[in-house]
Every structure is written in structure tokens, then in C-alpha cells.
């Protein structure tokens, strides 16, 4: 065999791929992966194969027989599936009545009918030919009677022509499955009974696959599909098989045309009737179909459930809104009250602070008075004025906290120098902070 060259490249080795000797065995060909077949012993390549096979090993006779038996046989010789006893009445039929003959029965295919494959028809035909060929009957000393043989030929002619076969299948009543009666349905088996009706009816479908009827476990979708398919059924069924024979001599043109018109009308009428029949059948079937009822109830229940849910949701929403509004109102009121309290508290605190400042200021002023304005003996009004002026100045420049702090430092001090030092330090702090100018100070100069 020549080596084949391929155009698409191999992949790169994945990162980190490792194997002993760079080969990683993973699977294998299982017994199921092979089937024994027979090679045809012909041609140079086979002879080479035979040479190799024979020289490698020898087979015992047993092996040989087994090998043969194991090979899958591609020839099939059994006609077991087409054997049917022949009705003696049928054997009496005349070929000229072929229109009314049951072609499947003639060939022994009654149980297959429209399901018979082309191969089955051919095999059945051959089987009947072997049995009924007039030359064979003649050879057996029987009179030459070829009527049934002609029936066989006619049946085969019809069934092997796809167009004619459809025409016959269209009117093959034997293949019809009648819709179940009320009585039959009372015994249960609804799905089985109707299922076989539609299975048989489905043979006329132009579209495939034909959905099956299903059972009580079918999903809603399947059931809907089924009825949709059937209510829109596209059928190839025709009725020309039932045509009245058109006279084929040329003289009777009018008569001929008349029959043709009659036939066309009859076909149309039968087709319309067939459509109506199918529709009625569907109506009957769906009317009794528990699945449809159940789906409707379920749908209703689902709808109701939705409604209740919606109402509940609306109610809850209203309640939520109300609660929210109340909560908001409450919060607003509380906030207001708090604000009021805060305001009051603030007022009190301010007053307290004012009081504290007043008190502290009293301490400050008291301190210089206690220190006798830092002179011994009676202080002159000018001195008092200068000291108090500075005290005023400093007080004005510092905030209540600083006042409190200063008061804290002065509180309890009795010694004039110490008091003065505190004041001077404070004065200097303010000078340093640029709040007071040195020149403004009179008593607490550095």
C-alpha cells in the first residue's frame, strides 16, 4: 500500500507530558471492536496473505470448522418470515378480478402489508413463483391453470411499483385499524387502542417521523406535538384505485370524458371524506384524552396559583408600603424629639459653659486680686487698671476651654509670684501664637 500524505499538522506536545520511552499506552482494540468476516480468496494480495497465514500456524480440522462458523454470513437464505397458509378460496381467484384482490395476501404478506419492504415483496414473489408456476403444474401432470399465477404476477406488479403501491395502500382496508368503540374504551387501554389507530393512520403521512401517541406519562409538549401534527396532517392518500374503468377505445370520446370527470369528482369527494373522517377521529380521541384534561387542570391550577401569588404579593407590597411609611413617620418624629432634646441640652450646656466661664473668669480676676495686683501694699488704681486690663485682654483672646485650663492652673495658688508666672506664661503663649502683641501687655510683660 502506498503511504498517504496528510496536510494538517500534528499538535505540539503538551507542557509536562512525560512517558516511559515517550510512549503512553492508553486503550486497546476489544473483541467487540472486531468482527469475523470472510476475505474473498482472490487476487495477488490475498495469495500473499494466505502464504503468510498458512506458514505461521497450522489449524486442526476443528479450528477450521469453527473459523467458518464464526464468520458473519452475508447471504441470508431464510424466508421464514414470509410463510402463510394459502386460503383455498384465494387460489380460485381469476386474474381479471385483480382490482379486488388483496395483493399482500396473494403474496403471503398479510401480516406486513404497507410495512413490507421491497426485498420482502421480491422474496415473497419468488417463493410463490416457485410454487405456482404453470409450467411446474403442467410438468406434474396437472392441467395448465395459470389463473392464480397471473394473480401473483399482478400483485407483484402493483406492489413493486411505488406509485401503484401507494394507490393500493391508500385503499387497503385490511391495514386499517378502526377507532376503538366506547365499550372497548371502558375496559381501559385507551393509549394502546388509539396508539395503534394512529400508527396505522400514519402510513399515509408525507412527513416523517410521525409522532407516536404515547401514554399517560407523555409530556405536555409531546402530546401537543402529537395533536398539532395530526390536526395539520399532510396525507398522500389517493383514491384513484377505486376509479371506474375508463373505456379505452377511441370511438367513445364523450363516454370516456364523462367517466374521467366522474372519477375525478369521486376522488375529490373521497379525499374530502377521508379528511373529515380523520378530523372526527381526532376530535373523538382528544375529547377522551385524560392527558389533555389533566394538562388543562394543571394549567388552571397553575393559573390560579399565579393569581393567588399575585394577590399575596400585592397585599404584601401594600403592607410593606404602609409599614415603611409608619416607620418613616416614627423616625421623623423621633428625630424631631431628639433634635428638641439636643437643642435643650445644648442650651443647658451653653448656659453651664457660660456659667463656667463666668466662674472661671471670676477665678482669673480673683487671682490677681488675691495677689494684690502683684504689689505690696495698696495697689494704685493705675496698677489695678493695668493688671485687670491685661486680664481682660487675655480673657478676650482665649476660648472657654483655655479659660478653664488657666483657671485650673490658678486655682489654689496663693503666692503672688506663682500667680504672676502663670499669667505671664499665658500672656507669652498668646504673644507667641500671635494673638496678642507684646506692646498691648502692661502688667504681664515678659
Amino acid at each position: 500500500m502506498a503511504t498517504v500524505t496528510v496536510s494538517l499538522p500534528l499538535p505540539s506536545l503538551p507542557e509536562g507530558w512525560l512517558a516511559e520511552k515517550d510512549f503512553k499506552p492508553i486503550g486497546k482494540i476489544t473483541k467487540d471492536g472486531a468482527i469475523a468476516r470472510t476475505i474473498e480468496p482472490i487476487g495477488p494480495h490475498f495469495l500473499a496473505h494466505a502464504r503468510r497465514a498458512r506458514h505461521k500456524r497450522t489449524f486442526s480440522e476443528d479450528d477450521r470448522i469453527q473459523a467458518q462458523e464464526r464468520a458473519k454470513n452475508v447471504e441470508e437464505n431464510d424466508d421464514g418470515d414470509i410463510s402463510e397458509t394459502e386460503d383455498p378460496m384465494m387460489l380460485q381467484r381469476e386474474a381479471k378480478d385483480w382490482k379486488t384482490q388483496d395483493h399482500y395476501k396473494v403474496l403471503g404478506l398479510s401480516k406486513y402489508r404497507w410495512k413490507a419492504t421491497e426485498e420482502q415483496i421480491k422474496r415473497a414473489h419468488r417463493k410463490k413463483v416457485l410454487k405456482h408456476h404453470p409450467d411446474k403444474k403442467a410438468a406434474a401432470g396437472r392441467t395448465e391453470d395459470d389463473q392464480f399465477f397471473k394473480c401473483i404476477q399482478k400483485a407483484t406488479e402493483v406492489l413493486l411499483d411505488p406509485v401503484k403501491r401507494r394507490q393500493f395502500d391508500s385503499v387497503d382496508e385490511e391495514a386499517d385499524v378502526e377507532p376503538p368503540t366506547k365499550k372497548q374504551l371502558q375496559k381501559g387501554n385507551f393509549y394502546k387502542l388509539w396508539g395503534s389507530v394512529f400508527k396505522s393512520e400514519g402510513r399515509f403521512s408525507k412527513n416523517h417521523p410521525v409522532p407516536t401517541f404515547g401514554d399517560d406519562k407523555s409530556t405536555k409538549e409531546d402530546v401537543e406535538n402529537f395533536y398539532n401534527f395530526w390536526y395539520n396532517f399532510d396525507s398522500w392518500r389517493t383514491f384513484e384505485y377505486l376509479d371506474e374503468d375508463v373505456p379505452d377505445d377511441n370511438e367513445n370520446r364523450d363516454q370516456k370524458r364523462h367517466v374521467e370527470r366522474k372519477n375525478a369528482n369521486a376522488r375529490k369527494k373521497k379525499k374530502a371524506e377521508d379528511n373529515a373522517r380523520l378530523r372526527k377521529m381526532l376530535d373523538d380521541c382528544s375529547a377522551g384524552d385524560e392527558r389533555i384534561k389533566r394538562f388543562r387542570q394543571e394549567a388552571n391550577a397553575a393559573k390560579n396559583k399565579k393569581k393567588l401569588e399575585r394577590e399575596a404579593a400585592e397585599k404584601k407590597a401594600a403592607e410593606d408600603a404602609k409599614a415603611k411609611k409608619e416607620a418613616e413617620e416614627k423616625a421623623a418624629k423621633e428625630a424631631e424629639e431628639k433634635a428638641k432634646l439636643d437643642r435643650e441640652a445644648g442650651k443647658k450646656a451653653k448656659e453651664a459653659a457660660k456659667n463656667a466661664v463666668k466662674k472661671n473668669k471670676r477665678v482669673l480676676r480673683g487671682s490677681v486680686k488675691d495677689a494684690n495686683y502683684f504689689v505690696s501694699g495698696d495697689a494704685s488704681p493705675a496698677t489695678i487698671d493695668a493688671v485687670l486690663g491685661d486680664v481682660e485682654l487675655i480673657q478676650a483672646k482665649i476660648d472657654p476651654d483655655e479659660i478653664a485650663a488657666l483657671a485650673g492652673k490658678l486655682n489654689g495658688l496663693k503666692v503672688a509670684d506663682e500667680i504672676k508666672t502663670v499669667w505671664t506664661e499665658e500672656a507669652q503663649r498668646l504673644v507667641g501664637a500671635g494673638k496678642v502683641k507684646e506692646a498691648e501687655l502692661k502688667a504681664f510683660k515678659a
Partner: protein
Amino acid sequence: MSAPKPAPGDRTVIGITFGNSNSSIACTNDDKAEVIANEDGDRQIPTILSYVDGEEYYGQQAKNFLVRNPKNTVAYFRDFLGKDFKSIDPTHNHASAHPEDANDTVAFTLKDKAGEDDAPSTLSVAEISTRYLRRLVTSASEYLGKKVTSAVITVPTNFTDKQKAALIAAAADANLEVLQLVSEPVAAVLAYDARPEAEIKDKIVVVADLGGTRSDVAVVASRGGMYTILATAHDYEFAGAALDKILVDHFAKEFMKRNAGVDPRENARSLAKLKLESESAKKALSIGANASFSVESMAEGIDFASTINRLRYETIGRTVFEGFTRLVESVIKKAGLDVLDVDEVILSGGTSHTPRIAANLKAIFPGSTTILAPSTSATAINPSELQARGAALQASLIQEYESEDIDQSTHAAVTTVPHITNAIGAVSVSESGEEVFVPIVPPETAVPARRTVIVPAPKNGGDVLVKIVEGNTHIKVTKPEPKANGDSKAAKVEDAGDSDSDFSDDEEEEEEKREKVWKIGATLAEAGIRGVKAGSKVEVSINVNADLSVTVTTREVGAKGGVRGTLSA
């Protein structure tokens, strides 16, 4: 007579097709097969014997006696060999000697001696076959200038062991050694594969052998020059005789148009003439567009001449022609395959000359399938000669073998072997980065088998992964895009001009697209090839051994060493 057993060196061998309608003889010349013309100049020799005044006629001369001497003419007997009366179909013997039941075998009663008083003889089908084969051997011996001793004979694939034994015995009685019986479709494949220009490739071949009274179709897996039949069908409805019948009915009606009330089919002799001339017209229509039909004294002394053109013929024969197509489709399906799996269709048998049949088949296969028929391929071999050529080739291959050797080589112990059901291949990467299956050993390959492919390494080289996997095909169907609506359609109608072409345009657009795609299955092994040069290629060899163990060998092309590993069965 006991079977003749010439020593291998003393053999003169030929190939024989012993058909139900026609037979052929062939020999090889410098390894090339050649079909031999008999003394009448015929390469298709009707399988018919006729006795007139004690004289034996065979072939075309015997066939001509179907008109004047039907009772002493025996035709269509090959299929009765090795069968009992109960299981034969006498349909085609109605216009010649009728088969009879004689002690569990089939016989014919013929007046084969000259004397007025000599009683007719009852001859078994085995005896008839012996007499006929003797005539074939004589013709071949005369042509070769040497006594033919041995032959390879083709038989249908559904010939039973009993039928085969009966044929070998009948040949022995004609002093002919049967080297081997080979099946008809495979002989046809060999005839094509043995041509010097043929390449041995793995392929699926459909052989449609369309004969006179039967059509046999086989699907053959051709793997490395070895052939395995995957499915067959045998059909007795759609064959040459059905086409003859259509023409017989046609010309009978034409005749009756001019001669009301005289149906030439109701008189045996008229019918025989009608049949012979219809067959001639049918053959003429395989080559020309017209055929003439002319019979002297067709019925009640009235001469009749008419013509038919090919179109008319193809119209009245439609159901039969379509039957052939369905038959071929059914066998492909039976083999579990699709038309997309078929690489070649070989049309074999006389009826395969018909252009309409080849054209109809061409229409159901993809463009990549080769249809080997005279009307579709310039290099096609004459379909009537394929089987005889194949038989002659096989005869020349084994003529040096001892007959025990042949028996052993063709025994089931040698021919029955496992065939893998899945393909084995490697994984490549497509431009879009997807993993793609590269088949190396196709499905239905008999083991042991060895196949090698060469695959490019990644563009830049480096370390390469060779992943060996199983693969399978499935048929991907793409539905046509839903058509754009209203206005574009309206525009098209305007463009199209006449409604006819517009219609066919639509048809084509609506066709769905079917393609065969490989699917990657189970991984069997991985191999790494290190340090491959940029732009280099990698060779991957797979050996599937007789015990289904698999040996993988792979290396950079031109490099030493490589990676090798075995998967035990």
C-alpha cells in the same frame, strides 16, 4: 468420471463465466486478460444448447433456434444446477424446453438424436451443463491452439455448497479441472484492480451485476488489495428480461395499432421473434439515440417494421430503471453504509451497458464517487467482460499451485479473519485549532494489516504529540437556510424569465447538504517525538496484528530512532 488432475506444469488455464443468460471465456496474455471470441465471433456466448437433426448447436446459433425449434432448445439452466425441482423458478424457460422433475434433480427432455425413431432423451441439468462447458472449452482450446485443462469459474455469491459441488462435477465430466470457484462481483473488482495503471487503495466498491434474468449487487470493502463482501442482494425482478418485456409489449401494441385484433404475443413463434428483435433493439439503444425494429412475418404472415427512440424507451422503462437504483440503495443500507461512503460503483453484466441506468446511479452518489460504466467513464471496461477477465487473472495467478495448496489457501481457516469495526488514526489540528481525525487504518480492514501515513509537524517544530485514536464516521445533514422572504423571491422571478428554470432553481436551493464527517473516538495511545526540526514531517505506522494487538511506530521523517510501542490485545 473422476476429477481430472493435471500436474501444475501441464496445465493450460482459462477463466470462465458460466452465466444464466450468457457465458464468456478468457485467457491472459502477458498478465493482461483478454476475452476470447468463439468460432462465431461472439464474446458473449448465450448459455443455450439446441438440437436439430441430431446436430448440437450452442451459443448464438442455438439462441436463434428459439424461434423455429424451441422444444429442443434449452436455455436459462445454469441456476438449476444442484437444485431440486421444488426450488426452481421456471419462468424464463417457458419459451424453450421446460424443466422437469427427475429423481430430485431438474431435467429437460430433448430430441438430441437424428433418427426419426429415436426417442427423445431426458437429460439432467448436470449433463446439459457438461455438454455446454465442453463446447466452451473446445472453443477456447481452438483459439489457444492447446487443449485447455483447467479453469477458474465465476459463481454468484449465493451459490450453495451443493450448487458448487454440482458445477465442479459437471466440469469434471467435461474433462475440465476447476482450479477455483470465485464469486462474480469480486472477479469484476479484480479485473479493474489488475490493470497496470490501477493503484491499490482502501475503498468501498459497489458492484452492480445486472444480467438477463437476475441482478446481483454486492458491497465490497477493498482493503490493501484484499476484498471482503459486506452485503449482497439478489434480485429476479429487475433485470434485462424485464426491459425486453417492456419492448415486447410496446412493439406488440404498435403492431396491433396497424393490425387490430392480432396480438403477436399470443402465438409462441411470433412471441419468440418479438423477443429476439426487442432485445436487439434494446442493445442498439445503448449506443444510439434510435433503434429500428423489423420482423419478417411477425404474425399471420404480416411483416412489421417500426422504430423507437431512446427517450421513449426510457419513459416506458422508467419503473424498471428506478428499480435498479432502489436495489443498489438497499444493499448499501444493508451494509450499514451511506452513498457517501462509496468510492466506486462498478457496473457489470450485459444490462449495465444501458446509459440510463448509469445516469440514474450517478445521480444518487456524490460527485466524488466513480461510476464505472461505458456511458459515464471513458476508461471503463466492457461490463460484459469483467467477470471472465477476473477469472482468467486468478487462473493465471494460481496455475502453478498444487490443487491441495489451492484448497488449503482458500479454506475458511485462512479466509475467516477478524475485521476491525472502527478506523484507527492520528489526531491533527485544523487551522481553527480543532482536533481532526486522520484515518490510517479504515474500518472493515482485515487483520493483520499495516498502514503508514506522513503528517506535517507543527510549523515551528519542537516536541510533537502523536495521539492514536479510534474513529468513526457519521453523516452530517445541514438543512438549507430558510429562504429570504417576499421581495427577493419576487426579484428572482423577474430575472428568471421563464417559470421552468425558476422552478429548477428552487429545487436545487432546497436540497439539504449531506457530508461524511469523522468523529474521534477512544484514545489508544500517545507518543511524543522530541526536538523535531521546523518544517519537518512525521511518519506514523500502525500495525494491527492478527490477535488485535496494535503496534505503533512513529518518527521524524529522515531521522533515526523514533518511538515504538505496543498495545496488547
